[in-house]
């Protein structure tokens, strides 16, 4: 019984939140890694792209709610998601046309593109703040829990409850669907194959008649879709605040690099590695240990390795260790 309680506590406080957070990071990291693979630079504006997409979702959600349209027990934001994706696609395509294409034609060095993406980051950040303001916005509705801690306790008779929020359940399901679609697209369709070919060897791809502008355009479309999805899911799970998305940049980059930049499978694995490390290292283990250890060994403190404010430090240290010992990431990424 104690063992079961310990497992439930572990699932409730570590596994469920980490899986949801990991899915959000993985979706974000997939966007970063695709841009890196095809356009060959680290996109500092990715966090703000996520914020922009999520912002449109928030606005559309409000509109739908005002019109009396809801999605039953599911959050209305899911209905708004397609519109948000379209808006975000429009934004990144315009940005590419006005900004990035010029440097691509010039064959500018990647570091110049990174600086350019800093400028784009400023503009997107300004746009989001201009339209919706810098404050917290709530836009989640529908049922709050798939299963609440009290129901779980009544159902199983255990002392510990297991709560799964709707947003967490939706995050995982949507992430699985998005990733499945992405991999199907990359591996089975002609366009997807041409994208992978372009990423592997640009010159050879150009020689075999692949249109680079088309590849770039499709990459941006996919990236916008992934970024918006990640942004909306994160916003549903926590809350929508423009500045927080900027701060997500670090764990997202860490996920992409740990998995190997340019490698989609790596990005997903990296997302979960970062999420699980952040949560396990900043979780107070007392609750779990109380069940597992005999009374005499019961811990007096919280048994928390680091305070939650240092979660950035966790992703960063993992990033640094991987970079120092395996610079191409755990799954072979590319090194330019």
């Amino acid at each position, binding site marked *: 019984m104690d063992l079961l309680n310990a497992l439930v506590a572990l699932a409730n406080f570590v596994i469920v939140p980490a899986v949801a957070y990991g899915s959000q990071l993985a979706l974000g990291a997939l966007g970063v890694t695709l841009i890196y693979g095809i356009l060959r*630079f*680290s996109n*500092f504006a990715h966090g703000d792209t996520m914020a922009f997409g999520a912002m449109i979702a928030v606005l559309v959600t409000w509109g739908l709610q005002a019109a009396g349209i809801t999605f039953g027990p599911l959050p209305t934001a899911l209905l708004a998601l397609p519109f948000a994706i379209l808006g975000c696609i429009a934004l990144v395509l315009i940005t590419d046309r006005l*900004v990035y294409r*010029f440097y691509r034609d010039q064959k500018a060095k*990647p*570091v*110049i593109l*990174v*600086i*350019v993406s*800093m*400028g*784009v*980051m*400023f*503009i*997107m*950040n*300004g*746009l989001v*703040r*201009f*339209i919706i*303001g*810098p404050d917290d916005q709530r836009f989640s509705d529908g049922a709050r829990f798939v299963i609440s801690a009290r129901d779980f306790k009544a159902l199983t008779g255990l002392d510990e409850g297991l709560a799964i929020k709707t947003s967490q359940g939706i995050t995982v399901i949507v992430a699985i669907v998005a990733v499945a679609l992405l991999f199907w697209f990359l591996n089975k369709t002609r366009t997807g194959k041409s994208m992978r070919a372009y990423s592997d060897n640009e010159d050879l791809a150009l020689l075999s008649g692949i249109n680079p502008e088309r590849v770039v355009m499709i990459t941006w479309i996919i990236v916008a879709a992934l970024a918006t999805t990640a942004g909306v899911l994160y916003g549903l799970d926590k809350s929508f605040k423009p500045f927080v998305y*900027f*701060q997500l*940049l*670090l764990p997202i*980059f*860490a996920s992409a*690099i740990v998995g190997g930049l340019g490698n989609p499978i790596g990005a997903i694995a990296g997302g979960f590695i970062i999420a699980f490390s952040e949560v396990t290292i900043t979780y107070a283990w007392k609750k779990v240990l109380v069940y597992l250890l005999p009374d005499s060994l019961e811990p007096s*403190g919280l048994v928390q*390795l680091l*305070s939650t*404010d*240092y979660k*950035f*430090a966790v*992703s*960063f240290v993992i*990033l*640094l260790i991987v*970079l*120092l010992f395996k*610079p191409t990431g755990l799954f072979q990424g590319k*090194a*330019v």
Partner: protein
Amino acid sequence: MSDTVKNTLLFAVVAGLILVTGFMQSWNTAILIINMGLISAIMAIGVNLQWGFAGLFNVGVMGFVALGGLAVVLVSTPPTPGAWSAGGYGIVLALLLGAATVVAAVMAARKLPKGRTQTLAIIAILVVGFFVYRAVFDPSVAAVEAIDPAVAGNIGGLNLPVLLAWPAGGLLAAGAAWLIGKTALGLRSDYLAIATLGIAEIIIAIMKNEDWLARGVKNVYGIPRPTPFVGYEIDLQSDPSFVERAAGLGLDPVTASTLWVKTGYAFLFLVVLLVLLWMAQMALKSPWGRMMRAIRDNEVAAEAMGKDVTRRHLQIFVLGSAICGIAGAMMTTLDGQLTPSAYQPLRFTFLVWVMVIVGGSGNNFGSVLGAFLIWFLWVQVEPIGLWLMDLITAGMPDDSAIKTHLLDSAAHMRLFTMGLILLIVLRFSPRGLIPEK
């Protein structure tokens, strides 16, 4: 038009903009722009040293600036009574133990033969070291933070003159930069960028959460001023000769005293800027500077010529970061308080980058010009945006939601404008206003 004339004109334009501010808004605003412009110019020189001279992509400027601010608290504030005996020494001991653990782990990684024994030894050292560190650290911290938490709760400083804190800020930033450079400088350019971005966030996280160090988010107030160069307004207002002189200029004593205090800061900052600018110019012209640019332009060729690229990179990374640390210390002195939550990467890292790139990367004078121009815009975009919004919304009814929203959002025009300026300069004049020679 020769380069000298053009550059003088550019500086004159920026000076003119600040003068216009003085006449149209207030001299207080103008001199505030000058003060922060001087500090920003020093930060820009630091970043220019790293990026313009050596091509190092450091986006952790905020972290070094914050460390400079921390140094001010640790040097110039009075020590908290009893804090050192209660837990200060324990904290130092714990930090030393932590450092020893890391050193031991690195030694194990270097000395022991590769294999499972090595891995196990490293893990064992780290785990044991961590728990020993926490066992010493936690009670000491609790003891220090328990001392008068409403006003203190930190170990305090050394009670030395605040001017000494400026070089100390440089040293603290240099030390951190050395540690970071040792681990991260071997990495490719965009990995280095992400590594420095992360380190800056961690430095801020530490300053926010380690209350024993500088009170965390409870902030430190009342940092002493660099007397006798900068006095206090109250003293000036009660000084009859000052009041008389102010009256002679047609100013009331309160305004005159605030202006006089800020002018004092401006002179101090100007001296520091001129010294650093002179040093940076000398470095640029010296064989060392030529070598740096050679490394920047072609690392492989420079290495083939026998230059130790990694060492030189480390050197310039430390120097540039130290300059940012000095600027950070000066800024905290000007503010008179340390507020860790005020450090935002957009403001302290990316804005400095905009300054360097707009001014002209690789050119020290360009960095100074860019710093003043961008800081002027950063301050003035808000009122200009508000004025613009007033104009746009003039025809709308007063109760319209769009009007209120537009007026409220004018404050956020800043970031948008900065991004736009950066992109326009990068596109149409990628070498900046004063290009590298």
